[in-house]
């Protein structure tokens, strides 16, 4: 048992903390309060972070990345999220898919895609799964409805595949240069047996971005529609085998870090937001007065500070544990459970912080407190809705012996 950090982990944490303090915090509220979805993004912060390695943290050193372990990745995500949750996510989203490239792609593909990704500070990655009529069906394919799930069609034509259809609510879609796309290659087979994953560059002919979504929280994190009209993708861009789907877990069990990283990612990001909220609340309680008395001298305020710190430290303990478990390929339902837990914690903690600030009054601190609450609601559907919890429950059940 050892909770201390290695020097390398500690130094990454410090670099990220400094970047969050000096570069992210000064711009986060302004970007959040931009009226339209386009004013919320800033390439400058992406490039600055990329130069420090925050874009390529998860790429192996041999490909020019930072090759950090999961513990370091968790620490950095939390520190960046302490500055702005959606900026942290914009960076870590690339880690998620570079994990996938390294786990699921062949050598030729790695060379072809990882090198340019590492070289270009504005090269962002994404993955398209969700479609207007297929959300949770992709995550929990129903037994009694084999045709449920994504409909985007891909048909082989010589050395190419022709893609037709639509994806929606795709992160990084408006800013990404390369996307993983799940497409139906056998419309008659159930999802898992009829789907193939493709690598689709943003300049693929027949492929374009549709509507850009304007979110109430996580506003920096771009999200949009993808439209495929006879989009032509070379066969060489097929990831793994045709009709095997869901490479990120299928081929390599849970070890690829695709899914599992995604769970850790949201939990670690939430942790950073909670740290921010706890810091803001304590600061306010120790400086603001009511009737001449510091807020913190009141029991109801002290009890709220206790609760938000209690939940945040419990989350921190859990996040660092699963990060370590990932580094040691420990099999469990913990990553998913921690992600679910982070949903409950980030929402409760940010709401308490807003409460301590007395609602979003005019002060910057109060508006910031309200932003955190809006950001936290993203967890409801990404990390903590009933489908996310049922999926983990199934895993839990599988991991305990039958009849026990």
């Amino acid at each position: 048992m050892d909770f201390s950090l290695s020097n390398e982990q500690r130094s990454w944490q410090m670099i990220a903390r400094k970047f969050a303090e000096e570069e992210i915090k000064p711009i986060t509220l302004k970007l959040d309060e931009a009226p339209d979805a386009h004013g919320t993004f800033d390439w400058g912060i992406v490039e600055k972070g990329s130069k420090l390695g925050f874009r390529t943290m998860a790429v192996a050193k041999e490909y020019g990345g930072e090759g950090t372990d999961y513990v370091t990745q968790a620490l950095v995500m939390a520190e960046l999220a302490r500055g702005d949750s959606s900026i942290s996510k914009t960076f870590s989203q690339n880690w998620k898919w570079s994990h996938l490239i390294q786990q699921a792609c062949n050598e030729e593909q790695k060379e072809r895609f990882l090198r340019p990704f590492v070289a270009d500070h504005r090269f962002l990655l994404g993955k398209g799964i969700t479609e207007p009529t297929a959300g949770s069906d992709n995550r929990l394919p129903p037994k009694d409805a084999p045709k449920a799930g994504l409909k985007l069609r891909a048909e082989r034509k010589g050395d190419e595949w022709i893609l037709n259809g639509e994806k929606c609510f795709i992160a990084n879609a408006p800013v990404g240069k390369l996307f993983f796309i799940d497409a139906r290659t056998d419309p008659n087979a159930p999802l898992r047996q009829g789907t193939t994953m493709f690598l689709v560059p943003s300049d693929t002919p027949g492929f374009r971005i549709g509507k850009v979504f304007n979110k109430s929280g996580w506003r920096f994190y771009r999200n949009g529609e993808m439209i495929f009209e006879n989009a032509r993708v070379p066969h060489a861009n097929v990831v793994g085998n045709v009709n095997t789907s869901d490479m990120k877990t299928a081929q390599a069990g849970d070890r690829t870090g695709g899914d599992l990283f995604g769970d850790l990612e949201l939990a670690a990001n939430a942790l950073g937001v909670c740290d921010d909220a706890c810091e803001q609340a304590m600061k306010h309680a120790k400086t603001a007065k009511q009737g001449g008395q510091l807020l913190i001298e009141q029991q109801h305020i002290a009890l709220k500070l206790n609760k938000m710190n209690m939940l945040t430290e419990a989350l921190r303990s859990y996040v660092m544990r699963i990060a370590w478990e990932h580094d040691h390929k420990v099999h469990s339902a913990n990553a998913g459970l921690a992600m679910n837990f982070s949903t409950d914690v980030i929402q409760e903690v940010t709401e308490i912080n807003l409460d301590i600030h007395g609602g979003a009054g005019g002060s910057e601190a109060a508006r910031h407190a309200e932003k955190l609450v809006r950001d936290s609601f993203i967890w409801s559907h990404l990390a903590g809705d009933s489908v996310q919890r049922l999926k983990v429950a199934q895993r839990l059940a599988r991991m305990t012996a039958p009849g026990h």
Partner: protein
Amino acid sequence: MYSLHLSAEQIEFRDTVRSFVDDEIKPVVLNANRLDIGDRALPKDVLDKASQMGLRTLALAEELGGVGADALTCCIVTEELAAGDAGIATVLAETSALGLALFGAMTNAQRDAFLPAFLEDDRYHLAYASHEPDTDTALGIDYHRTTGTAHRVRTKAERNGDSFVVSGVKDAVVNAGVAKLFAVEVDTGKGIGVLLIPAGTRGLTVNENAEPRWYHGSCGEIILQNCTVPADSLLQGSANLRGEPGRGAPLAQAINLGIGRAAYEAALDYARLRVQGGRPIVEHQAIGGKLAEVAVRLEMSRNAVWQAAWASDHPAAQADRSLPNLPLTAMAQVFASEAIYRAVKDAAECFGAMGVMRDMPLQKYISDARICLYSGDGNSDLKLRIAEQLSGHRRAPLLAAE
């Protein structure tokens, strides 16, 4: 005799306002721009139509030309309006409630001066200016203590012959941007009084863009600089137009109820249409159970609001122990604000990613319910106020003024 039957009139009111909301309000407000929480614009023509239906003068006594609706009816109507738009509901509820209080407290001369215009002009709204910057009622630190801050009024009204000269600043004034008459709490030197000051009076400036921007409808700051009004603009009798703390008509939570119901109905409709897992999602236990909890929280909140509303009109029911002698409105606020916020969040969750899109209604409902949750002194202070009454502690009303 205990009865939960609504009168035919109440049900008709509800139906009328509900179709007004469907036909006139929703088409205007349920569009991308208006759903953006940044948008503060009030659809004036919709407000005019509502006024022509009598919703602006809903609570005003019949003999004074109003509808004379009781507190329960006002809450029912306000819930319906808020199910369409919380901002519209807030403006009308505030003017209606102040119409009852102000014109009830006026002398005949004052009524003659202000009532005709109020009745004629569909855009004649009212505002009550009480709160001042950097003041708080601080019940927290006053809890069971005699020390602590009093309800300070720094706005001074100096008598000068036949007039008062008023100087000071009031903030968080509901309806500031639409009011044609302000009732302003001032210190006259002889105590705290309420002055009637028409909008446009020289020396009175309204700042609609003042922080906090944390309200429904219209809210802002008014600055008084040597604003001169006739001496007979002073209201007679008690300065406290808000009634006994924690016991007035729970209009704020009636608005919240409307917000919660709109979110719930949207979620239920969607859950019956949206197919995942081979069937409408409402047919999955997880979604069905969640919607049931939402429905329960809303129904319990409505019980609380209606109970408090009715009680505010029937003090006898607390006197004869039909109802407990407790601040039922404060209790309704504490319960409903928390229950509805959770309900709206759960409703939004059913929409997945659509629940956070700024051109979709759900994130607006969440934001609106959040405003209801974190308003005024907050629920922690309200709970302490309730606790003082449970334990029989009495404090000077002004210390606990709402």
